[in-house]
């Protein structure tokens, strides 16, 4: 009776004609998670927070239909649209930064991250202009329920953008000093995923506040 020691096992396997000799394809369970699990928990928590705000907005809106149908008409649609374009473009630049580091091009990564930060700064500038524009039109957080929620949602999102920009600036400095390469860029990918999450929240906020009346 043969024992299951290593040489016998190898012989046994080599005689099996059904054995697979093709390229090794990773199983789904072996696929790596982009960034790391901690970032995904953070992203899940942040998106849940925004989802709760959206539900509150819809409930309050259903109880105050007139206020909420007039609210978007008084907002600065140009500012909202420009901010959406700025955030989508910054997300694209971050995706290009990840693409560059996968090709082992840290200098290009730094360039794309810098461009993304520039888009983030544009967002801050446009949002500041929008808030001043509102103030000149006599609109503030106490105007009515729509504006209370508008300021709460957009200012909360603005804080996330500022935090995301600090994270992007940090990974840009690290990329400048060659902290990342094609085999090790988890920190960069974590910052990128967080930034995309900020974009994801905005692509719901924009139509909810500015478009849908």
């Amino acid at each position, binding site marked *: 009776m043969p024992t299951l020691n290593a040489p016998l096992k190898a012989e046994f396997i080599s005689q099996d004609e059904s054995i697979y000799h093709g390229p090794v394809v990773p199983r789904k369970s072996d696929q790596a998670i982009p960034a790391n699990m901690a970032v995904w928990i953070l992203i899940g928590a942040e998106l849940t927070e925004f989802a709760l705000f959206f539900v509150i907005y819809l409930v309050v809106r*259903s109880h105050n239909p007139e206020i909420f149908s007039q609210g978007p008409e008084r907002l600065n649609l140009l500012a909202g649209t420009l901010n959406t374009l700025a955030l989508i473009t910054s997300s694209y630049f971050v*995706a290009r930064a990840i693409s560059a580091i996968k090709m082992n091009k840290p200098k290009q990564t730094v360039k794309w991250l810098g461009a993304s930060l520039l888009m983030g700064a544009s967002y801050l500038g446009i949002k500041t202009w929008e808030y001043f524009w509102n103030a000149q039109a006599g609109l503030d957080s106490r105007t009515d329920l729509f504006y209370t929620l508008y300021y709460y949602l957009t200012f909360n999102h603005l804080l996330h953008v500022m935090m995301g920009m600090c994270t992007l600036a940090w990974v840009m400095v690290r990329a400048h000093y060659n902290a990342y390469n094609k085999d090790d860029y988890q920190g960069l990918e974590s910052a990128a995923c967080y930034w995309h999450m900020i974009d994801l929240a905005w692509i*719901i906020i924009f139509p909810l506040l500015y478009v849908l009346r």
Partner: protein
Amino acid sequence: MNNKSLTGYWLVLISLTLLSAIFADAIAPTTWVTVVVCASIMVKGQVIVDVFMGLRDAPKGIRYMMLSYFYVLPPMVALALVFPGTVESITTL
């Protein structure tokens, strides 16, 4: 995902945003506008999750968690806007 594809998807996102802005500015609010705008949110969310975040080939759990956000919230927004009376009656104490 190559850079040309990334640029193509970015242009899709830009186009959908401009389409929403045109709807807001030039077209009277109707049920169809609401449905189209919410559908565009779903498409944008899917593109960002799958392409920009790179979750298309990621483990299913994380990908589905992210995608479910955009499969649940935009339809919920559309329903709440089309049937505000129902939401009001459900949420009245």
